[in-house]
């Protein structure tokens, strides 16, 4: 057969970014270790979902915030090669700074306009100590920030769910509450599988017809141990 017209073919990139709270309070009652374990346990499930859709190239990164913010894994890494190094916990909760750094990475370029909607997963146990609204404004000023699938997980009763809901930006999608390690594992697995699968499906959506999410997100699993359960430790 004659040579196929055109340049190099490529599957569509899907950027999946963990945004992890590493403030000092995360060191209490084993929260940070539970988070490290949950993400590590979720990786094989992420790889399975990614393998089921060979037309999406799942690229994973991680951003941590405490006193300031820093890329924990800065390079978009194919999920097959992604390894989780434990996060330490210390300092305050500079979430605004983290969102500003995220905004820089979601610009076009370095992002491509042919990408699939990025998935941003924010996990926090407290209240921002810096300019959260300023950081969120920077994020939402970027087209990919606005179009990203934004998920939030609240660890423990002290997490500021109002802030997390503002980050999500869609009233029909609520922050997921994790008051014990099992719930955290369950939520992390859900975003790593069900949400990832939805974001990697290429169906188009008509814009401006109805308000709501640009990526249909399946219902999260019913929490077996709800708030104020006897199993709660956070």
């Amino acid at each position, binding site marked *: *057969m004659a040579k196929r017209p055109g340049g190099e*073919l490529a599957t569509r990139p899907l950027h999946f970014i963990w945004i992890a709270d590493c403030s000092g309070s995360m060191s209490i009652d084993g929260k940070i270790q539970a988070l490290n374990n949950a993400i590590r346990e979720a990786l094989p499930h992420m790889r399975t979902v990614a393998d089921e859709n060979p037309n999406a190239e799942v690229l994973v990164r991680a951003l941590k915030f405490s006193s300031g913010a820093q890329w924990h894994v800065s390079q978009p890494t194919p999920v097959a090669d992604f390894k989780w190094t434990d996060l330490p916990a210390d300092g305050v909760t500079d979430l605004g700074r983290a969102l500003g750094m995220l905004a820089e990475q979601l610009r076009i370029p370095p992002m491509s306009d042919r990408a699939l909607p990025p998935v941003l997963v924010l996990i926090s146990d407290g209240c921002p100590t810096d300019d959260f609204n300023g950081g969120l404004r920077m994020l939402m000023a970027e*087209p990919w920030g606005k179009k990203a699938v934004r998920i939030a997980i609240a660890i423990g009763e002290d997490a500021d769910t109002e802030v997390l809901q503002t980050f999500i930006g869609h009233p029909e999608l609520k922050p997921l509450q994790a008051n014990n390690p099992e719930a955290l594992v369950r939520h992390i697995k859900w975003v790593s599988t069900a949400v990832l699968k939805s974001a990697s499906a290429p169906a188009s959506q008509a814009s401006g017809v109805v308000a709501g999410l640009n990526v249909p997100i399946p219902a999260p699993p019913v929490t077996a141990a709800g708030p104020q359960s006897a199993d709660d430790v956070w």
Partner: protein
Amino acid sequence: MVTPVTDSALPAWRTLRASVRGAAHERAGLPNQDAVRIVRLDAGRALLVSLADGHGSAKSFRSRSGARLAVVVAQKVCGHLFKLDRPSQIKRWAEEQLPLELVRHWLEGVNRSLQRQPFTSAELETLDTAARQQVESYPSLAYGSTLLAVVVAPGFILYLQLGDGDFLTVSAEGEITRPIPQDARLIANETTSLCSPKAWNEVRVRFQTLAGAPPALILAATDGYANAYRDEAGFQQVARDYWELLRDEGEEAVRPHLKDWLNEASQQGSGDDITLGLLWRPVAQF
């Protein structure tokens, strides 16, 4: 598959088209939701190539029908261009009235379809409560589709586009242009659509009076094609390569391979349905 159009006043345009089911659609058991139509207008003196891409999301469960309706409506509405006399009238009608007429006829077609075949419980039961309410209050959402159309006539070329997808042209010198620029809003699989509110405001029209030489090749494609390439340069190369193959080796160098090439692009690239329409002038026309 190949439609030659000749007239003493019109260069001999030739056409090719192909449409393939996306690799992701095959895995999900979904049909090809694109549509393509090539017809002659104005007693054979003009040619219309129209493509439509049904959205394929859960809420747009009749988008395959919506896409087929879109290309039929394009034929009906673009036929009116040739009832007008002067190029200035045609241009004005195309820019001001044609978008309204396209959307109006498409919505009428949707309503007729709904009267004949109301939504079934099987169609609606796959939706969650919120999605079901949205479709019931906004039924045209179920038929959502984009539309790209190009009319080549002796005195003008008209491009129109609603939603994502791409036009590329190649000059006889090999220069690539986009007659309708990319819409920066259309990322993340969101697209303007025939079912959008006031969709006529989203129709982009480019009317070119033919004073000099027309393009050597015009390429129209649904977004699954451009999304299959790593970058814009790689996609623009598609048009240049088609033109060089057709110019140097003729139609037989392209036609038998077209579906295989599109399948390869979907499998190794976007995973989406891909539909392509090519119009070109054989080299003897230069």
